[in-house]
């Protein structure tokens, strides 16, 4: 598929023979092995597999956080690994939202400041920022905690704030690495509800790694990795 065609299609992420190897002593570990996949706009996709199967590496490669050993990652038709570091940071700022397993929020900022942080980096004006923060706080049901500091929130609340922050600037897609790993069932369910709601309401594409069955059950597409290779790619219609 050429770049122009991809720009106009619904495919937002495409990998082409994507590989990443790490050297551990004398042995070579293939964390990603010739991966070819496409993610279309609006998908709610989970990358699953046992520990060490390469889930995080795949997400890092797609997010431009790790340089591939070989192969390419196209986001909206652009090979992101051809960007300079500065261009890549800027590209991530405007196109990709991230949710990590730990330490997502800046503890010295309030909930609303955390959500507005990326928009502030983008230079969005105060009025627009405040409107968007209020909208997201309502969606995630945390309007009353707008002025709270992250240290006063539960793990689940923090992750919901992280999701809100990731999509505050309306990125092309969100990469979430094990977002429910540290949450109890109720908190995980609530986070998934929030993510699905935002996926439907804001048409945001989610690509997340997990080995949590609760998450797998809610995903619309499951990509299974084993030893860095895609072994299964299943789509479910809700």
């Amino acid at each position, binding site marked *: 598929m050429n770049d122009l065609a991809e720009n106009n299609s619904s495919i937002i992420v495409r990998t082409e023979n994507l590989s990443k190897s790490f050297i551990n002593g004398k042995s070579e570990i293939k964390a990603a092995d010739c991966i070819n996949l496409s993610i279309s706009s609006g998908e709610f996709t989970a990358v699953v597999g046992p520990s060490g199967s390469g889930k995080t590496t795949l997400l*890092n490669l797609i*997010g431009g*956080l790790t340089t591939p050993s070989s192969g390419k990652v196209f986001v909206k038709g652009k090979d992101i690994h051809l960007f300079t570091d500065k261009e890549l*940071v*800027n590209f991530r700022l405007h196109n990709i939202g991230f949710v990590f397993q730990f*330490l997502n929020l800046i503890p010295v900022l309030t909930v609303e400041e955390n959500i507005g*942080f990326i928009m502030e980096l*983008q230079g969005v004006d105060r009025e627009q920022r405040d409107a968007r923060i209020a909208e997201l706080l309502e969606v995630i049901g945390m309007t009353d905690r707008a002025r709270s500091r*992250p240290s006063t929130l539960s793990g689940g609340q923090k992750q919901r704030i992280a999701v809100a922050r990731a999509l505050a600037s309306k990125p092309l897609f969100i990469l979430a690495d094990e977002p429910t790993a540290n949450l109890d069932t109720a908190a995980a369910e609530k986070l998934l509800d929030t993510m699905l709601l935002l996926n439907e309401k804001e048409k945001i594409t989610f690509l997340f790694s997990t080995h949590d069955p609760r998450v797998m059950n809610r995903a619309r597409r499951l990509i299974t990795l084993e030893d860095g290779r895609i072994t299964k790619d299943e789509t479910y219609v809700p």
Partner: protein
Amino acid sequence: MIKLAWLNLHRNPHRALLTISSVFIAAFFSIIFGSVKNGILNSSADSILKFSGGHIEIRSINYSQTRSIDDIMQIDSATLNSISKLPYIKSVSPTLQSYFLVSPSSTNSAKAVAVVGIDPDSEKDRIGTVLGMIEGEWFSKYDTGLIMGENMKEQLGIEVGDTLAVMGLGYHGTSAVGLVPVQGVARIPVSTIDKSRVFMTLSATQELFQADDCYSDIYIMSERLDKVDLIKSQIQSIFPADKYEIRDWKSTMEEYLFYFRFTDSVGLVILIFLYVLVGSNILGTVILMTKERRFEFSVLVSIGMSRNKLSKCLFYELIIVALLGVVMAALISLPIVYYFTNHPLPLYGEAVETLKKFSIYSGIYTSLEFKTYLEPFLIVLCISLAVIAYPVAVIQSLKVDEGLNKREGDEDNL
């Protein structure tokens, strides 16, 4: 960004306090040390200058070359008053210096000595503070006697109250001849002067040499050493350069300047040592902080914060810490420096006597000068700027994926 930097300092108060303390200790001791160094140098210079001249000397160009009494200056009292009114001037001491032969009336031997005619009132702040009277009385304005050192007294074999016959060349070919009583004997701390100079009142000297309103030198003491250049430039506008030679203490006291520079260099070495110590302390804290926050930096870069912005944020953090440390040091040291500027700490013992021989005041003075505060401020800022290079280098070369795998500390330590 500045707000984020400020808030970040509150995340780990112990770390912030540690860094602020490092900066504070460096700045505090460098202010105190610099102030004591400058204070001692200033007071030493002041003591020496009181005896050997002044901060500024004025004489005619011809006299400077010939040392002949015929080339001295004739200056009216209005001009002398106009100098006294210039800012930062402590005293203006016109003198008339010449030479004559002195002979005790009881002997036939004679000795050539320099006679220095001084104004007793204006000299209170200059020679008067250095000469210690051993016998007799210090001058009143119109006294006609002379004061000499112990050494001269022994050489001439005379006592206070004896009369000396003096003979010399007066102004413009006149004779300077007379009988002058010995009014007092003083302790003169510089032996070359003790052996070769006697003092008389200015009026008596002018009368002896028949040189009314004439002066060989005018010595000016400044209230502050750092204002000497300003005073010199103002005096240059009163005394034309084609007739008068105006020299400041730096050109008249080269050998003392060497001593000052040497002392200054020793002080500088100690200060450098102090700054190196503190620089390493700050660097150590910053390295630790950088290590602890590697994960945080990775998260921030991955969510789209540019490395430059992140570096700028850290830069602000360290600058805030440095400023807090320096400002605290300045505030706390200010009353201490102020007190010892006005109440020098006296020293005792043999060393004091040695210092006195060189007419150096033996006490610990401090100096309340702007530069004493400016220097540590700028140096600590420069150290902080140098130290910031480390986290900036780490951020610029940070491998985000590796950083994300190296989580340290608890969740609130992002």
